[in-house]
């Protein structure tokens, strides 16, 4: 029996399906997560509405747009949470990675397929969430027909950035055995620099520059800005180019780290 392109595709599809089934097994967990996201959206709406009531704020962006931005950015950050990291850490700790490596298909491939399954299985929850999110926060329609198409493209790139960052963090566990601390930092930095709490256009200049050099803006800020029509024409092209660049950079970096990781395992036994 051999491993052709076709059988490999079938194997990855099965992993996607199994990843999705696991979310379904633990569906109450997803419902709790969703409730917490909706609550966060509601709180952000209350806080930002109060801030907008203050005098002297530079509110170049309409409050309704800001709330739509926060609603969408938070939903998206939730659906795009990397699960690879925790899973990989667990495989490394228990030594089960030895079994994963004794399979004829790529291990990072198995991981990404599993992550994709988890994410796809969250989409039904998003359908439930959208009307709720509309009431908790607010949501306006996409800026134009073109905006929704660019938004979808941008989401795909955003997703790749998230998956690659999750993979890179998980691989760190080979050297540190413990990545919970790193994940903690990631969650905080990601929420802040992806612009899920405060839109990046309100950042002070220095932080704004920092954010521009980090991959996190590719996660939520850029796609949501496209959706709301805050980026237009060349702005959209630039945003997609930045995202694509991050995908390429992170992919190459992940290749390098995976190569080192394999050497580490093969020589040190993990």
């Amino acid at each position, binding site marked *: *029996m*051999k*491993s*052709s392109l*076709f*059988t490999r595709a*079938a*194997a990855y*599809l*099965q*992993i996607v399906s*199994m990843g999705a*089934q*696991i979310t379904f*097994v*633990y569906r109450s967990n997803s419902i709790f997560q969703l409730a917490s996201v909706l609550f966060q959206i509601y709180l952000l709406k209350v806080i930002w509405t109060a801030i907008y009531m203050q005098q002297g704020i530079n509110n170049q962006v309409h409050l309704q747009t800001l709330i739509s931005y926060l609603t969408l950015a938070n939903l998206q950050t939730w659906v795009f949470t990397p699960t690879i990291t925790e899973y990989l850490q667990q495989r490394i700790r*228990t*030594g*089960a990675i*030895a*079994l994963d*490596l*004794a*399979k*004829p*298909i*790529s291990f990072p491939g198995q991981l990404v397929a599993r992550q994709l399954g988890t994410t796809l299985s969250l989409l039904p929850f998003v359908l439930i969430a959208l009307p709720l999110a509309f009431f908790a926060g607010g949501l306006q329609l996409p800026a134009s027909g073109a905006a929704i198409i660019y938004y979808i493209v941008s989401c795909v790139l955003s997703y790749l950035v998230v998956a690659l960052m999750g993979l890179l963090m998980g691989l760190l566990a080979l050297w540190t055995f413990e990545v919970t601390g790193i994940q903690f930092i990631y969650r905080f930095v990601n929420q802040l620099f992806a612009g899920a709490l405060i839109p990046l256009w309100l950042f002070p200049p220095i932080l704004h520059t920092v954010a521009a050099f980090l991959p996190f803006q590719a996660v939520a800020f850029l796609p949501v800005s496209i959706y709301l029509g805050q980026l237009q024409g060349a702005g959209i092209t630039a945003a997609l180019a930045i995202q694509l660049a991050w995908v390429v950079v992170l992919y190459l970096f992940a290749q390098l780290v995976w190569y080192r990781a394999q050497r580490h*395992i*093969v*020589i*040190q*036994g993990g």
Partner: protein
Amino acid sequence: MSIIHLRDIVKEFRVPKRHPGKFGMLRALLAPEYSVKRAVDTISLNIEEGEIVGYVGANGAGKSTTIKMLTGILAPTSGTIEVAGLVPWRQRKRNALNIGVIFGQRSHLWWDLPLIESFKLIARIYGVPQAKYRANLELFSSLLDIGDFIETPVRQLSLGQRMRGDLAAAMLYEPHILYLDEPTVGLDVLAKERIRGFIEEINSSTNTTVLLTTHDLSDVERLCPRIIVIDRGRIIYDGSVAELKRRYTKKRLLTVQLEGEETLLELADATVVRRQGAKIWLEYDPDAVTVASLISAISQRHQIVDLSVAEPELEPVIRKIYEKGLHEEFIVH
């Protein structure tokens, strides 16, 4: 050409040194020092297609390290290794198509999902044609009796059921070689027997080569004509189980129960090693005297109520080897 071929294989690991005292941890963090630990020390062996070989040694002797090198997830420090014509650590994924692996303490199966989902995945990963998949599933259902729990999530299975599931998963794509690292660990007698029966069956029907590591020597006695004993990274015995026993079980034990308790037994060719009421344990040398003549000598003078001859067992032999090494002469009974 042997299907598994190892020549002068050495595997060394770098282990960080620990320092005692207050600043030991700080030192280890800032200026780590390493010592080299040799897990496998110059091993050579050949296994022919269709053999079932027992690979035995104490904890930390290097068994699992050897298996990991054979699967390609560890590279040897030096030496040459070839499995079905491939160098496992260089051609890990291609090698993976030829082999099935079971690590008794770990599982291939997806914990949260019904067993059947893991089977489907294995079938796709290895490109098992639909017809063959069905036929094998049916075969394993009868051999391993997995039909009852195939729709049950793996986390709800008992250890014995899970191990049967793992074995089925490893054989679903009919690999030429099966590495079993402690497949019966923690299982009850019935579950063990079922697994042994399965190994025996697939070996005889498909000529699968099996390398079996275990701490349960009855696995080896039941399945393996050939045994390799490894101690501190070195192979100290490679040959037939029968020969190993013959070499180290010089004396045998005969137990007799005589009528009445007054009996005094004096025999030229055997010595009494233990006595409990009317039950007497006699030690004799099978090269000097046969059991038959011993028994007839006793029955001429006494009334025998019951008797048993102990078959030489592998376990005490191996235990002694672990304790003393093979170089020393010892006798076990």
